[in-house]
């Protein structure tokens, strides 16, 4: 009888220790019991007050620590910047045989006269692939956040959006529409020019794609989402985006495989195709950002 009650007591002690409910009375039983209770049970107000004071303390020392870090970082960086190789000298360490090689052999090895394009699409193409993945990831994560679902949209929002659409339908923005009628074809033309001409002049996939996306944005904001959906539904949008990226990845993968295994070069002149694929991806990304931010749907 006595034994069992002692056992009960023992059990209770462990339970209270595990929960950290309160200080055990007898401190000789467990050495570890001496530590602070891990589960203090203050009253509601007390707890809130403590949380507040904790946060307050954090906000009090945080600016001081941050300022110290900033000032010391600026000091360190300034010291490094002042002892760097002098700006604009031709014999700086950075102007080594790599850049010479790009400038001298870039055109014959990759077929593009613009050394920057040659570098980002052929020599260091893996970085560019990663960059396209970053764009794709950004648009997917924005969709994860803003694509309409039950968590981020309610009836009220939908109603507001509908009434806004109606207002926009009724009040034609005549200047915007007329300007867009003239500008959109020009922008598209310019985008295609930049896209196709990236090999011999500044530009290429990234700039061209952005301009193309800007044209889409202008069209969408001038003629409304209804007209936009006639040329670009969600399905076409994701199909085009996936097509662009998959084309890019397969082409570039084949290119790497051929190059690394020293096979004969079957992919002469694929820089143009890759450029086009990159342009598609970028245009889709830019338009996707706009559509998600403005309406939460394509």
């Amino acid at each position: 009888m006595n034994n069992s009650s002692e056992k009960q007591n023992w059990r209770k002690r462990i339970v209270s220790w595990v929960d950290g409910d309160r200080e055990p009375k007898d401190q000789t039983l467990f050495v570890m019991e001496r530590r602070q209770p891990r589960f203090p049970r203050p009253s509601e107000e007390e707890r809130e007050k403590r949380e507040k004071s904790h946060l307050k303390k954090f906000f009090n020392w945080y600016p001081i620590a941050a300022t110290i870090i900033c000032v010391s970082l600026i000091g360190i960086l300034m010291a490094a910047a002042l002892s760097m190789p002098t700006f604009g000298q031709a014999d700086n360490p950075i102007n080594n045989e790599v850049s010479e090689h790009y400038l001298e052999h870039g055109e014959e090895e990759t077929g593009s006269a613009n050394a920057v394009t040659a570098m980002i699409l052929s020599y260091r193409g893996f970085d560019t692939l990663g960059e396209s993945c970053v764009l794709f990831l950004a648009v997917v994560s924005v969709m994860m956040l803003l694509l309409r679902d039950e968590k981020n949209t309610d009836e009220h929002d939908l109603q507001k959006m509908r009434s806004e659409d109606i207002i926009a339908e009724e009040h034609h923005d005549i200047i915007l529409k007329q300007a867009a009628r003239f500008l959109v074809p020009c922008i598209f033309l310019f985008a295609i020019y930049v896209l196709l001409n990236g090999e011999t002049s500044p530009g290429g996939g990234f700039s061209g794609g952005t301009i193309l996306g800007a044209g889409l944005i202008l069209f969408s904001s001038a003629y409304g989402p209804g007209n936009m959906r006639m040329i670009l539904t969600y399905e076409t949008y994701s199909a085009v985006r996936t097509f662009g990226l998959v084309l890019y990845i397969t082409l570039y993968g084949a290119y790497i495989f051929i190059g690394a295994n020293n096979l004969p070069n079957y992919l002469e002149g694929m820089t143009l195709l890759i450029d086009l694929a990159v342009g598609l991806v970028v245009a889709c990304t830019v338009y996707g950002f706009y559509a998600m931010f403005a309406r939460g749907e394509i």
Partner: protein
Amino acid sequence: MIILEYFLLAGIIMCAAAAPLCKRLLSMVIVYMAFSLLMAVLWSLLQSPDLAITEAAVGAGVTSILFFLTLKKIHALKGTRDE
């Protein structure tokens, strides 16, 4: 040419310092746009036209549009239909 460079560098530093100090978020975004445009000019001075095009299209264009749309969503634009 070098005078222009100094002006641009000073302007960029001023824009960068001013942007986050603006009370209104809208003015902050506009100053940031100016910062991006100055950056684009600077890059064409540094003989990198690729960068200038991309910065003008991406930094001053797309980023600003995204900022404006965000401002609209968080009701920081005065005079829109939200208010």
